[in-house]
């Protein structure tokens, strides 16, 4: 049976009708990983025993005639900066190479309660800092569509594992596009929820006011099904909130979409722009109203991000000091233990961002950089608020280019940072966004992203499904 083309719903039907068992399904995906992952390296850890035990539990329920939830018995992967109890969690860094997670992240707990099968932990840029998965201390992940190219980052492993059909879906995290950009590069769907709708408890923190946990999947419906299970206010995450927005999908009002002119820039790949515009042109015939809008402060998003994020990083990375967990270099003094441990075990990009963050927060620079960036962030949020008075959703390219080759952007950090130019604004504003495949540019996947109002995921899913129909009908 070809399991690789199944959606979550179809697999669920197969399990319920006993066409195959959860153990069959899990064994299949473990086999695929064994065959493909030596080339792709999406996984840092394959949790075979855990997965098979969970699958056996699911089969027990099914054989007892119990009603099962939609995610029961369905294999998934978890980005290696999200804690799964008893399993190594490295955040792609040598400093956590000996760290076994002492508890489950809330999202993992929710998935397990729903019967999900955790098949492994996926590769990422070190501490989620990067846009290509090239800074992982444990080797790169290759784009399954073209092994000479990056899968994107920081969640390259999650996107690649789905693209290579090594699992149905994978959890990832975003601070400026780390779920959407790899989804776009690998030809899959990448969902970034509204900040606060999904608990961050058990997510290794990078930029706490920006981080969200997201989903990589093959289809929009799959992402929606997973989102509905992992969302929810959590007492262990003080920044989490309940979704109190009225659902609008029952409202048969026509969807109004805005296309921001600032997201079509010089230097972006022609093929990507063509794919995106083709979809936009088709939307009218599908009952969607499209108009041009403007988000004037877009061009400052990336600089604002590269002040605020490193500032938060410099605080969040302070805990990696060789004192509480992780690797340590025993030294003669406390200060030297800090210095030696961090020098030995933290990579270049991490150290770069810690220093940048310390600088922008330091006396004499705080006002020029940090306070200024906070103001710009507010202006970007206001841009979105104003545009959402006119339209329900905003669509734009996810990235300016398709997947680049290994080593292409590693010489100059700013070059790499520019990959996030279209994705960072949504993180700064806290709004939800989803990347959906929209065709190929020179044989490589291009992604279109849908940005929605705070807590407006339902409309995003609605438009996402329409776009899928458009793209699949070509």
């Amino acid at each position: 049976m070809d399991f690789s083309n199944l959606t979550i719903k179809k697999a669920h039907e197969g399990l319920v009708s006993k066409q195959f068992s959860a153990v069959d399904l899990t064994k299949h995906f473990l086999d695929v990983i064994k065959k493909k992952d030596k080339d792709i390296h999406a996984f840092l850890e394959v949790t075979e025993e855990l997965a098979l035990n969970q699958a056996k539990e699911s089969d027990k329920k099914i054989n007892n005639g119990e009603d099962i939830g939609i995610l029961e018995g369905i294999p998934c992967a978890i980005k290696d900066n999200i804690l799964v109890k008893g399993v190594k969690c490295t955040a792609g860094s040598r400093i956590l190479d000996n760290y076994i997670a002492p508890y489950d992240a809330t999202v993992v707990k929710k998935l397990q309660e729903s019967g999900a099968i955790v098949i492994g932990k996926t590769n990422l840029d070190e501490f989620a800092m990067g846009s290509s998965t090239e800074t992982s201390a444990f080797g790169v992940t290759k784009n399954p569509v073209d092994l000479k190219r990056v899968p994107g980052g920081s969640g390259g492993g999650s996107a690649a594992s789905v693209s290579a059909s090594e699992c149905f879906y994978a959890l990832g995290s975003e601070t400026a596009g780390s779920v959407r950009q790899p989804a776009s590069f690998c030809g899959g769907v990448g969902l970034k929820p509204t900040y606060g709708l999904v608990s961050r408890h058990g997510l290794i923190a990078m930029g706490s006011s920006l981080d969200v946990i997201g989903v990589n999947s093959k289809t929009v419906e799959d992402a929606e099904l997973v989102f509905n299970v992992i969302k929810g206010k959590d007492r262990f995450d003080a920044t989490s909130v309940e979704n109190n927005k009225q659902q609008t999908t029952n409202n048969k009002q026509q969807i109004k979409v805005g296309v921001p002119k600032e997201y079509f820039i010089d230097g972006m790949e022609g093929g990507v722009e063509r794919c995106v515009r083709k979809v936009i042109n088709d939307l009218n015939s599908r009952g969607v109203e499209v108009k041009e809008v403007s988000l004037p402060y877009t061009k400052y998003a990336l600089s604002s991000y590269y002040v605020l994020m490193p500032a938060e990083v410099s605080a969040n990375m302070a805990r990696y000091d060789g004192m509480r967990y992780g690797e340590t270099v025993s030294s003669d003094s406390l200060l030297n233990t800090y210095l030696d441990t961090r020098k030995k075990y933290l990579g270049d990009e991490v150290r770069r961002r810690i220093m940048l963050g310390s600088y922008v927060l330091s006396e004499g620079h705080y006002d020029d950089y940090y306070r200024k960036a906070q103001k710009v962030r507010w202006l970007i949020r206001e841009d979105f608020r104003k545009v959402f008075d006119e339209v329900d959703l905003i669509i734009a390219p996810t990235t300016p280019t398709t997947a680049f080759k290994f080593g292409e952007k590693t010489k100059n950090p700013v070059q790499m940072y520019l990959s996030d130019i279209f994705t960072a604004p949504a993180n700064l504003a806290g709004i939800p966004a989803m990347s959906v495949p929209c065709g190929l540019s020179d044989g490589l996947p291009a992604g279109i992203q849908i940005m929605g109002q705070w807590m407006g995921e339902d409309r995003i899913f609605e438009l996402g499904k329409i776009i899928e129909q458009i793209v699949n009908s070509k």
Partner: protein
Amino acid sequence: MLSQNDIQQIANLARIKFTEEEGKKFSKDLSSILDFISQLKEVEGEVSDERLRERGVFNVLREDVDDNKELEGMVSNLVDMAPEKQNGYVKVKKII
């Protein structure tokens, strides 16, 4: 351009150490990043400090009550992960 001295000062604050070779590269990289970021200067006076305070950001507090049954045993699990511990405490080098 950030001088070697600037870099060394930042590094001390951040508890970061590097070789001379690495120091030169960090200096170059950080300067180029700061160049890029300096475009923020173009955004002048459009948000006052008061406006920023009005953003509606507030603290989320809870009652200081220990009702965490699910966290039983967690403290000792966490302390166990430290490289050095004693009597249920994480042990560190002399601070003062």
